[in-house]
């Protein structure tokens, strides 16, 4: 079987971006020194482009990486999934990166697997999955739990949308002016593929959301509190969730010892650790699942954050990661707020 067979067009796009000098480097997931590893790569040399893959495995957030270590002056190309494209928008709102200097290629995504066997090539399609070239019906249990609840399959916030076709047919669509530049640099005609059929996938995510959140909502309050207490009690304070969260950008973190909450050389208390994170990112949680993937104690953190996000999204009418001009609801007031006199906005 040929390696990375769905990534060829993607590699051509990246080669074009680098060749035409649109970007100085491209950040993407690709094969590491060991062929079986998938690692974040900063590609500068066109020879390295063929290491870039489009397989449905996404171990980490590139948006987080670039916000943490990115060179502010550089033009950077990104190969991202929709959750990461949304993370870039959220980080741009928080002045952590400037979208102007990024050229992003978004991969249309129907979920990624939470773990993959070494050497395995896995691609997830709306209702099927391809493992090492063999097409099978989709095994939803193999997907990351956050991906099962995900409702953002199309990377409309990226400059170019890139779609893997089941029969090796791939489509690229330019979403922005920068996207058209990318495609003309790569000498790829803009193809208007048929609109993907996402209704079934949307229904599936609504079902998973209803199932997981519904179960928690139906619990008695005390039962729910005890459930979360028992989950938080497992926490070993490795700070993995904080360090992997694309929205946790503060250099001077509240959870650091000798800030407001934690005395020097102490470990933050269980509940407070998670509630602090919940307060800080709950209104814009992207449901990217990085926190849960990082958690060594298997606490279903992204379920909690996503649940609060959905609740807040319904009262504030806010969807995170779509429009860079719409600011996070808890830290922004609108003109309409000034006309309301009650203790809530209803």
């Amino acid at each position, binding site marked *: 079987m040929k390696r990375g067979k769905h990534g060829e067009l993607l590699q051509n796009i990246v080669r074009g971006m680098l060749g035409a000098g649109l970007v100085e480097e491209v950040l993407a997931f690709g094969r590491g020194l060991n062929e079986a590893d998938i690692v974040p790569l900063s590609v500068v040399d066109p020879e390295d482009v063929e290491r870039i893959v489009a397989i449905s495995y996404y171990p980490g957030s590139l948006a987080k990486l670039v916000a943490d270590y990115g060179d502010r002056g550089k033009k950077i190309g990104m190969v991202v999934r929709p959750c990461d494209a949304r993370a870039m928008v959220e980080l741009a709102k928080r002045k952590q990166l400037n979208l102007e200097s990024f050229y992003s290629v978004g991969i249309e995504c129907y979920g990624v697997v939470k773990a993959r066997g070494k050497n395995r090539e896995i691609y997830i399609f709306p209702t099927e999955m391809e493992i090492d070239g063999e097409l099978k019906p989709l095994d939803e249990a193999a997907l990351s739990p956050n991906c099962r609840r995900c409702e953002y399959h199309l990377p409309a916030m990226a400059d170019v949308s890139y779609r893997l076709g089941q029969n090796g047919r791939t489509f690229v669509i330019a979403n922005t002016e920068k996207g058209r530049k990318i495609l003309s640099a790569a000498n790829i005609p803009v193809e208007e593929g048929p609109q993907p059929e996402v209704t079934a996938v949307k229904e599936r995510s609504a079902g998973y959301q209803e199932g997981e959140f519904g179960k*928690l909502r139906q*619990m008695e*309050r*005390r*039962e*729910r*509190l*005890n*459930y*979360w*207490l028992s989950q938080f009690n497992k926490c070993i304070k490795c700070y993995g969730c904080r360090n992997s969260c694309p929205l946790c950008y503060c250099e001077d973190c*509240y959870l650091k010892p000798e800030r*407001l*909450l934690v005395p020097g050389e102490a470990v933050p*208390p*269980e*509940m*407070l650790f998670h*509630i*602090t994170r*919940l*307060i800080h990112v*709950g*209104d814009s949680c992207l449901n990217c699942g990085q926190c849960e993937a990082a958690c060594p104690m298997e606490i279903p953190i992204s379920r*909690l954050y996503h*649940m*609060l996000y959905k*609740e*807040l999204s319904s*009262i*504030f009418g806010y969807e995170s990661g779509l429009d860079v001009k719409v600011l996070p*609801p*808890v*830290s*922004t*007031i609108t003109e309409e*707020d*000034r006309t*309301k*006199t009650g*203790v*809530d*906005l209803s």
Partner: protein
Amino acid sequence: MAVFEPRILGFLCNWCSYAGADLAGVSRFQYPPNIRVIRVMCSAKVDPMYVMKALLNGADGVLIGGCHPGECHYIGGNYYTRRRAMMLKKLLEVIGLEPERLRLGWVSASEGVVFAEAVRDFTETLKGLGPNPLKGQR
């Protein structure tokens, strides 16, 4: 069995609610002694963390008092407080606490009666809810 007396932590803004509470005092309006007051310069100074820390440390309820919308000494601090309180109430619900344990009230400097009534009503609500299950959890 002893009657449950809730402990309320009150964050009152310097310019309106604190003065309102003061007025309630000098005017001898009776209200339950369950509230402990912390004066803050503006209700927007109340970080959501303060509320959660109070609840985790065993307070049965938290009252945030601010100026009426449009009357904030800092023009718009109370609008932020309002959004934060809305967020916190959802958060309490999601993790399994009663959202009623947090109350936001607008009390102006001349509204001693309103302050006394707010404390009275909040104390009654909390008596109905019972002790904070998080007491001692941290």
